């Protein structure tokens, strides 16, 4: 876990180019938010702790982008897009391996697309260890 009380280490995640999913955990009302704001959108508290997810969860919704928006994405299409409910609570959007269905258990790994690293959900089989 990375804590905001460690000022020397600004927490980073995939949106900063690092493999990892972070979320904010409100110390007052307990709301957990994937989009980091530095405050809690429910109660307004600024005591939010930045927490690193264990990157396991369940598929909430799934689609496949067949008609991609731009040349860079057309080269990759079709690609699966999912909303994953992390075990810690927050919902995240990720790429995913094909064939996933709502309710499937997944772990979120990483994929390089051009310069970026983006989250990619893979099936978590029952024989796999649930906590990495």
């Amino acid at each position, binding site marked *: 876990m990375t804590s905001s009380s460690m000022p020397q280490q600004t927490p980073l995640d995939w949106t900063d180019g690092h493999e990892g999913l972070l979320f904010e955990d409100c110390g007052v009302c307990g709301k957990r938010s994937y*989009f980091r704001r530095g405050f809690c959108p429910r109660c307004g508290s600024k005591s939010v702790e930045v927490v690193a997810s264990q990157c396991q969860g369940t598929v909430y919704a799934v689609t496949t982008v067949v008609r991609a928006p731009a040349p860079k994405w057309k080269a990759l299409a079709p690609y699966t*897009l999912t909303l994953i409910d992390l075990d810690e609570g927050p919902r995240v959007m990720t790429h995913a391996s094909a064939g996933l269905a709502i309710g499937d258990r997944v772990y979120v790994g990483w994929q390089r697309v051009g310069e970026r690293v983006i989250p990619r959900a893979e099936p978590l089989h029952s024989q796999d260890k649930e906590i990495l």
Partner: protein
Amino acid sequence: MSWVTGVGLTPFGRHEGRSSLDLMTMAAESALQDAGLARADVDGLVCGYATTMPHIMLSTLFAEHFGLQPRYAHAAQVGGATGFALIMLAHLIVSGGAADNVLVVAGENRLTGQSRDMTMQTLAQAGHARYEVPLGPTVPAYYGLVASRYMHEYGLTERDMAELAVLMRQHAASHPGAQLRDLIRVEDVLASAPIAPPLKLMDCCPISDGGAAFLISREPLSPHALRIIGCSQAHTHQHVTAAEDLAHFGAHAAMQRAMAQAGVKVGDIGYAAIYDSFTITLAILLEELGLCERGQSGAAAAAGHFSSDGELPLNTHGGLLSYGHCGVAGALAHLAEAHVQLTGRATGRQIKRQPVIAALHGDGGIMSSHISLIMERTR
């Protein structure tokens, strides 16, 4: 109190060589003529946006172009819900006494003014710039996610959604201004190209050029004035990732408040004008608004419930799915059609049981912004 006293709607489709201002002008001229008003009578102006012509002062740009000097003017934007937001805004402006005759005007050359890729990319920016857009999503994909969950929750099927596309096309076939008028079957929808499964090409509205305009007045100046008796909104989230639940949305609360304000019940509604950017949008909204049971919108459409001669005629111009979608004016075409149906001016496609009360609902973003309107014919 306020009245929709004039309606202007252009055909949707290709308007080669016409700019957004041209399309707004065409619609505004037609609305003024329908209201029996002159430019000098217009003392309020509200408009939305045009993606092909971004401008920080679109309302006054149009006012100068068209020849208006209103005492109230500005633009507003909430994505696909903008059109109905402008109608509600005009109602509030008129009711509050800031102006007597407000022109609501929209128009965009979204089809011929930019490439399809550019439109896809511009619209996808409704997603979160940091957490969603870097994943290469599209608006159909956001709605594909919504569809997957909603179908899972309520048992709605791709065939059910296809029934709604078929119905919209059937309605468009009788409107000369509609962009897509060739009849289609459920099998055609199911066999159309995948875009963002479960959504296929025919589950998606086309991109269009077009315009729509209305005069909202304090008095029922025209013989066909329609009274606005209820307006309400609900804004629950912006991004699909942040929506708490993809089985319940803000539409229900918005419509409940609008109906309470109007003093009407679902059974009083004789015409429905419902936003239909995708078949899933229409299915969810019909079910959310209580116009049919959960998971039953396709079955109800197949049984003729939403047909012109059915219990609750729906989007008899063909909706966004077949009349077309040119941005802000897209949903306003729903109001134009509701207006001519309620006032008995729909010519060849006139509903036989001329409705008295219409319910309208618009959605912006990814089921994010909801606006409900109730209109009444008083004579």
